[in-house]
Each structure stands twice: as structure tokens, then as C-alpha cells.
């Protein structure tokens, strides 16, 4: 045994001696050797074209897309086009689906429940709660997702996203964050949980934390449809009809840019206070442009993203729908739980230009941002029902107009200010529970998880507060 030990120590001693002899910069020598060997082999096996005609197309395109002056305008324009197509395209299928699932199928299902003598409360929980929430999720979320995700994936497949990161990189460096944060931010536009995991590409723990905390400011899968819908309903309708699509798209782009601005601002704040330090250098590789594979993109973005996100929404919508029905129908002193909450919170919410329904919806929708809008719709209807406007508690009344959403929300006392504030609050509020859990898993720190959760809420309330106060000063 001792002999063993001696032999091992001898190996280590030998290594130390050799290291001493070879000198300090051993790592550099080694890397140099590897590079030299690679160059030698490549020289034998690879023949480059005489003229640098290669890459010329890519280079030209890069010059435009990452140019100092055109880079950002093109970026905003691309985003704008994607949203405009989504808004224009989603309108019709959305109303078709809601007519089918909510207006036609829901009463049928209810009649069926009555015909088989289901107890009223079970009909309520299953048909008016679970089914209806699911129906709303499908009709409200499916069409924008089915258009938005393929378009976004095409841009990604083509190689545009790294150019966005390239454009953003100097800004992130200026605020003391890692340039790769631009990449993780772009990933957050898909899903914040994925964006948080993607921060693993950042090797400095300080900069990685900043990237994790600020990832929530990238609008995610679950929030795009909320933005698009509310922009269409409130901002689009505030301008002449021929401008509606354009202006709503611009509004969504504005919110997305605002999110980027906030991520820069918070990064700057963190790297000056709690997470002090200098930005570290790194190299960002711009991949070549690749012709997007249209059919495959359509397929994978439908299966991967649309169906995945929709499924997630449905899975969360079913129990949420049951919960909504219960809080809307369990009474204390003749008033439903939901109504108690809404009544108590309404005066507070008024200060922020929001309402009790929105607050309650955001609590119910903590597991998934996708169900915020359906929850708001059902709660609004439930709340109205009690005031004698609708057909009954937690049951959506039938609307003849195709614009169910607009009609319901306006009946619930919403105005342009509520719409704007909801868009802002949807950008600035706590991450969904999946993301919160991911943040905890990645940071292993309760403190930073809490910071990432509550910081956006505080910011959201601050922003909506000022917007509301200024709005009321100006409008009144």
C-alpha cells in the first residue's frame, strides 16, 4: 500500500518537475501546437477558391444587416412585419374557432350534461370551468401561434438571430453585461425557461446571474399572443380601420423593444450595485446564412412550438378553469370568492390603471402565461354575471359578434388605458412558475430566485402607476 502511495507521489513529483522545466506558458505552447497541427492538415486537404468570391453574398448581406445605421431599423422592421402578418392572419381563424368551440359546442355540451342528469356543480366545474377555459385557450392562442412561430423559426433558420445578437452586443457590453446575453435574450423570446438554461454559455458567474435575472424581459411564447390580442382589441380599434393592423403591430414591436430597454437598464443597475464588475471579452461567431427549409420549418414549428405551447396551455387551463369556476361560484355572504377578491383589490388596482380581475388572473396564471387572457375573459364574465349582465356565474354569454374578446372586455369596463397597462404588466411581472423553478435550479440560490421573481413585479407596478397617473392628468 505504501509502495503504491510512493509511486503515485513520484508521478506527481515528476509532473511538477517537468512542468518547471517546460516553463510557465505550457498551456499556450500546447494550444499553439494544436493550431499548427490543424493548419498543416488543413493545408493538405482543403483548397480554397483563388478569389475571395466565396462568402461574398454573406458578407454583403452582413454589411447591411449589421450596419451601424441600418442594423436596428431593419431589426425593428423585421419584427414589425412578423407581427403584422400575425395580427392580420389570426383575426379570422380566431373568431371562427371561438364561434365553433365557445358559441356552438359549449351549449351542446351543456345540454348533454343536463340530459344525463349531471349534478349542477359537476357540470359547472367540467363544462363551464375546464372545457370553457380550454376552448378559450385554443381559440385565442392557436391562430396567432400557428402564424407567429413558423415566421420566427424561418428567421432563426435563415441565420438572422445571431445578427440581432451582434447588433445588441455593444449595448450589453456598455452596461457591464456579457455580450452573449444578447443571444440568451433572443432565446428568451421563445421561452424564458429555455433562455435561462441557455445562459450556461456565459462562463462568468456574475454576468450569468445578470443574464438570468433579466431574461424575463424578453417576451416569451406565452406572452406574445396576449400582446398581439390586446394590441388588436384596444390599440388597433383606437385608430382608423385601414391603419389598425399596422398600428397594433407597431405597438407590439414597441413593447418588445421596451423589454430590451428594460433588460439593458436592469443589467446596468445590477452591474453597478449588487453584481459589480467589468464585462468580459468573448467572440461571437456569425453563422452563414442558410436557405430556410420552408416545409420542414412549418412542420417542426407546428409540432415543436405551437403544439407544445398549446398543449402546455391546455394542461394548465383545465385545472385553472375548474379553479375559476369554483372561485366564481363558491359564495360567502351571498358573494362569490372571486367577487370578494375583485372588490377588495379594485381600489388598489385602480391606482395602477388595472383592475381586480387582472390581478386575480395573474395569480391564477402563475403556472403559465398562456392562460392569462382566457382567465381574464372567464373572470370578467363571471364578475359581470353576478351583476346581472351575463347568463350566469362563470358562464360565457353568447355573443353574436365575432369580436367576442373586445365585447367582453369593454363590457367589463376596460378602456384604452387598461389595455396599455395590461400590455406593460404582461411584459413586467413575475416569470411563470416553470421559469422560477429553472432559475432556482440554475442559480441554486433562494436570494437570486426571489430577486428575479419580485423585481419585475415592482417594476411593472411602478411603470403602470406612472403611466396611469400621467394619462389621467393629460386626459382629464
Amino acid at each position: 500500500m505504501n509502495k503504491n502511495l510512493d509511486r503515485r507521489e513520484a508521478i506527481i513529483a515528476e509532473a511538477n518537475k517537468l512542468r518547471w522545466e517546460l516553463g510557465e506558458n505550457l498551456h499556450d505552447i500546447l494550444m499553439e501546437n494544436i493550431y499548427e497541427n490543424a493548419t498543416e492538415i488543413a493545408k493538405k486537404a482543403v483548397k480554397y477558391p483563388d478569389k475571395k468570391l466565396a462568402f461574398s453574398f454573406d458578407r454583403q448581406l452582413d454589411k447591411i444587416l449589421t450596419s451601424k445605421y441600418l442594423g436596428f431599423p431593419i431589426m425593428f422592421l423585421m419584427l414589425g412585419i412578423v407581427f403584422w402578418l400575425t395580427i392580420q392572419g389570426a383575426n379570422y381563424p380566431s373568431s371562427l374557432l371561438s364561434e365553433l368551440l365557445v358559441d356552438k359546442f359549449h351549449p351542446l355540451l351543456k345540454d348533454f350534461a343536463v340530459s344525463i342528469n349531471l349534478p349542477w356543480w359537476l357540470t359547472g366545474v367540467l363544462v363551464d370551468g375546464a372545457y370553457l377555459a380550454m376552448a378559450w385557450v385554443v381559440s385565442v392562442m392557436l391562430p396567432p401561434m400557428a402564424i407567429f412561430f413558423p415566421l420566427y423559426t424561418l428567421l432563426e433558420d435563415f441565420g438572422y438571430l445571431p445578427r440581432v445578437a451582434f447588433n445588441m452586443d455593444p449595448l450589453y457590453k456598455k452596461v457591464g453585461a456579457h455580450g452573449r446575453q444578447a443571444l440568451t435574450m433572443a432565446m428568451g423570446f421563445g421561452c424564458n425557461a429555455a433562455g435561462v438554461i441557455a445562459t450556461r454559455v456565459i462562463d462568468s458567474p456574475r454576468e450569468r446571474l445578470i443574464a438570468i435575472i433579466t431574461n424575463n424581459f424578453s417576451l416569451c411564447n406565452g406572452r406574445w399572443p396576449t400582446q398581439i390580442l390586446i394590441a388588436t382589441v384596444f390599440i388597433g380599434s383606437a385608430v382608423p380601420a385601414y391603419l389598425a393592423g399596422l398600428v397594433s403591430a407597431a405597438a407590439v414591436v414597441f413593447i418588445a423593444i421596451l423589454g430590451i430597454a428594460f433588460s439593458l437598464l436592469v443589467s446596468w443597475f445590477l452591474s453597478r450595485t449588487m453584481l459589480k464588475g467589468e464585462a468580459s471579452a468573448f467572440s461571437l461567431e456569425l453563422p452563414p446564412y442558410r436557405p430556410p427549409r420552408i416545409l420542414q420549418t412549418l412542420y417542426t414549428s407546428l409540432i415543436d412550438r405551437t403544439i407544445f405551447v398549446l398543449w402546455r396551455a391546455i394542461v394548465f387551463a383545465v385545472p385553472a378553469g375548474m379553479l375559476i369556476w369554483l372561485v366564481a361560484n363558491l359564495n360567502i355572504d351571498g358573494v362569490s370568492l372571486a367577487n370578494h377578491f375583485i372588490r377588495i383589490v379594485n381600489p388598489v388596482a385602480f391606482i395602477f390603471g388595472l383592475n381586480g380581475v387582472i390581478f386575480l388572473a395573474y395569480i391564477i396564471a402563475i403556472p403559465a402565461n398562456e392562460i392569462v387572457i382566457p382567465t381574464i375573459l372567464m373572470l370578467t364574465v363571471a364578475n359581470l354575471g353576478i351583476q346581472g349582465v351575463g347568463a350566469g356565474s362563470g358562464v360565457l354569454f353568447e355573443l353574436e359578434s365575432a369580436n367576442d374578446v373586445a365585447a367582453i372586455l369593454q363590457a367589463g369596463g376596460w378602456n384604452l388605458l387598461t389595455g396599455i397597462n395590461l400590455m406593460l404588466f404582461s411584459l413586467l411581472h413575475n416569470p411563470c412558475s416553470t421559469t422560477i423553478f429553472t432559475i432556482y435550479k440554475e442559480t441554486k440560490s433562494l436570494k437570486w430566485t426571489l430577486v428575479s421573481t419580485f423585481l419585475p413585479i415592482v417594476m411593472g407596478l411602478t411603470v403602470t402607476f406612472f403611466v396611469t397617473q400621467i394619462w389621467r392628468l393629460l386626459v382629464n
Partner: protein
Amino acid sequence: MNFNTDNCANCPAHNLSNLKKLGIDMSSYDYVVALAGNPNTGKSTVFNYLTGLKQHTGNWPGKTVTRAEGGFEYNGKKFKLVDLPGTYSLLSTSVDEEVARDFILFGQPDVTVIVIDATRVERNLNLVLQILEITDRVVICLNLMDEARRNAIEVDARTLSKELGVPVVPAAARQGEGMNELLKYIYDVATGAYICKPYRIKSKSKEMNEAIDKLSKAIQAEFPDLPNTRWVALRLLEGDQTIIDAIRNGELGNLQQQKILQLEESN
């Protein structure tokens, strides 16, 4: 007359019918295959092609930060395929690169497929040379040949293969080009029908070469089961504390087993 009935099975033209995409079914596999390579060279595309899975691929570096696993069956043998995060080197310290390094080093895949970008061969070779130091059972997938052609870059796969001592398969995974040959070589290397003679990093510094030889011999004598003594010697020379500790308490032999367990847990 002696008819060799195996000829048909060996002909690449017939091989595609021998591929069975098993998706996430990885039960009772015969071989483990790792997919390594620089970021954005198409590892995930190759992965999806072979397993039939639809892991999201995107045209940007760093798409995969954790490993994805899937299975396929070829010529009656079952393979578990592990898609590793893209790395430029195995010598650095960020989390995503560690995942790749630890798996190749300690997971001991039967075959490591290195996907390289035909338009950036030289830079991709840095990683190839490092992996060849760790394992000699390697197949190189010379991917993105379509882009190389578009840019009039000629890559001679045969010369490359001769230089590196491992099979090199020209491919365009997005179009499915070269996938049959890739499968054939994975199978051959896994079963031992193809013996690789991997290129070893040559240093101009004589002292360096001697130091590595000397150390790796000493390590070999102490830990005879260790497959990659040259790499351990290199790390030792660089003063890697985990390796020093592992040698001191004799855990280098066990380190492998522990690391595999850790890898299993972390996933």
C-alpha cells in the same frame, strides 16, 4: 462456387433500409455513440436524422446546452446516440463545454462522431485533434458540404481521413446526403471492423513530447486500465488539480465510474 451473401448488406445503397429510427427508445442498446463538434455545425440535424426525433435545430451557435439522447437500430445492432453541446475546445471551463468534455472523457462512448463544418475545416480541426487525444474510436462527419460547394471550397475527404487516421464522411445532413456512409462507418468502428489509427498532436518542442511520453508511461504502469493516459499526462503537466488529487488518492481508476454516475444524476 462460393457466393458471399453479405455483399448486399455491405453495399451502401442498401443500407438505408437497415436503419430503424428508434426515437427515444434506448432500451438495451449495444453501443453508445456521442455526437461532438463545434457549435452550429449541424450536430442536432444529424441527431434528428438518425433517431427520427425532432429536436429543435436552429442556425446559431449554442442551441444545445444540455445533452439530448435518442436511439437507432442499424444492421440489427441498437445504438444510443448522445447529442453533446457544441464546443470549440475541451480545455476551457464553461458549463456547456464541461458537459461535452466529461461525457467523452468519462462516459467512454463506443464511437464519437465529430461533426465538422466543411467551410471551416481548419478551425474545426482544433477540437478534432483534442478529441483524438482522448479516444481513438472516432468517425468524422464532414458536414455542410453543400455550403462548401456553394463557396467553391474543395475538401478532400480521403486526404483528411489519411492524415487523421479515422474515417471521414462528406455529408450534407440537412439534405440527408452522406448519412448512409456515416451509419456504415459508425457500425464498422463500433464493431471493430474498422481500426482507427488516430493522429496524435505533434509538438515541435522535443521536451514537451518527451515529457508527455515519460509521464503517460508512468501513469500507464500505475493505472493499467486507463484508456487515455496521454490526455491525463497532459492535464497533469498543466497542473489540473482534480487530476492531481485523483492520482494522489488512487481514485483515477474509479474516477471514471464516479463521473458516469454524476453524469447520470445531473440529467
